């Protein structure tokens, strides 16, 4: 096992493709996405009814330096369209 960072963010489903493409450009290409989430925050309810776009939950396990790069790309999206980003610690099971 090796120590890694666990970055997770919740953003509008519609923004995920763009964000992941921009991460790919800085060589961050491993991630997992869970779609169809809903939630509430400063911008009110989202994704809870069929007429509003769903949110996506994105999980990236990466090392310390990559965290900074990711945050740089994610923050503008959070700023203009809302959402959250959390960073925590984890151990990665090497296989």
């Amino acid at each position, binding site marked *: 096992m090796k120590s890694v960072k666990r970055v997770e963010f919740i953003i509008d489903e519609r923004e995920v493709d763009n964000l992941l493409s921009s991460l790919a450009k800085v060589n961050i290409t491993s991630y997992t996405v869970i779609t*169809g989430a809903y939630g509430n925050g*400063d*911008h*009110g*309810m*989202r994704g809870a*009814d*069929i*007429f*509003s*776009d769903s949110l996506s939950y994105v999980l990236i396990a990466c090392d310390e330096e990559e965290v900074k790069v990711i945050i740089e790309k994610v923050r503008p999206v*959070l*700023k*203009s*369209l*809302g959402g959250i980003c959390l960073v925590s610690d984890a151990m990665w099971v090497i296989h």
Partner: protein
Amino acid sequence: MDFSLVRNLMDPAILFFFFGILAASVKSNLEIPPAIAKFLSLYLLVAIGFKGGVALSASGFTATALVAIGAALIMAFLVPIYTFLLLRKRTSAFNAAAIAATYGSVSAVTFIAAQQYLTKNGIDFGGYMTVAMVFMESPAIIMAVLLAAIVRKQQAQAEAYAGAKIQSVPGSSPISIKTVLHEAFTDGAHLLLIGSLVIGYITGDAGKAVMAPFTVDIFKGVLAFFLLEMGLLVARQLRQSKDLNPTLVAFAGIMPIFNASLAIGLAYMFGMSKGDALLLAALVASGSYIVVPAICRYAIPEAKPGVYFSMSIGITFPFNLVIGIPLYFAAINMLWA
């Protein structure tokens, strides 16, 4: 009118709407899976767009069509203006702008319900009314974004005069009008309606023949399921919404009648047919709960979705569906007689 109201209430699809409200009221766990509900709404857009396109290919773009579309466009510009002026002082100016956009735009399901109502009563209507619906989507959005921009500027100036720091909503900055327009035009629901309309127009009767079992025959059943979902949604929305005040509730119930009256007057002046007049009234009277709220969330982040979305879907939609449509038709019948 009483008779036609009862007849409207006897429609299985309308009854499923009531049933949905009831099921949600008793806190049942009845739920149409969201993926299904979304698909049902796509189906309705395809069916209605395709049907309109086929009808249009048969009739062509006549003067009648242009007049109807013109009337729709006039209303799409008028409604947001007077709605904004009316509400500016009764809620926050940003809410007023968002509500203006909501009511300037349209509800496709209300339009569908009006078509069903006409079909049941054996009254004709033109395929171009679907085109009219398509054209009514965007003007309201543009106007509302402009109104919001003006309000924002005024407030900034006022604050500047008052020596206050210019503050935006926490964590959000309004997005550009270009982005807003892109979102409005590329919105899935909007685009699908246009696409189906065009495909129906291109393929005409040959297309109709192969598509009819899917787009026509099972339509009522799908609509019944969708209205069941809408009933569940309306009841849940009303239970949750805490941002509505009595003025706004009253507005959401009276506004459709006022808007429809103007629309009917215009239709009468323009010599439109009874069927087209009802569809125009339904379009003008209805409020958007898909495209516009989705866009206002970003374009006017200062406004509360709990207000404009709840008004439109929680009050105006059921009002039009159940009472409005037969009411407007009764008025049309009297006027045209």
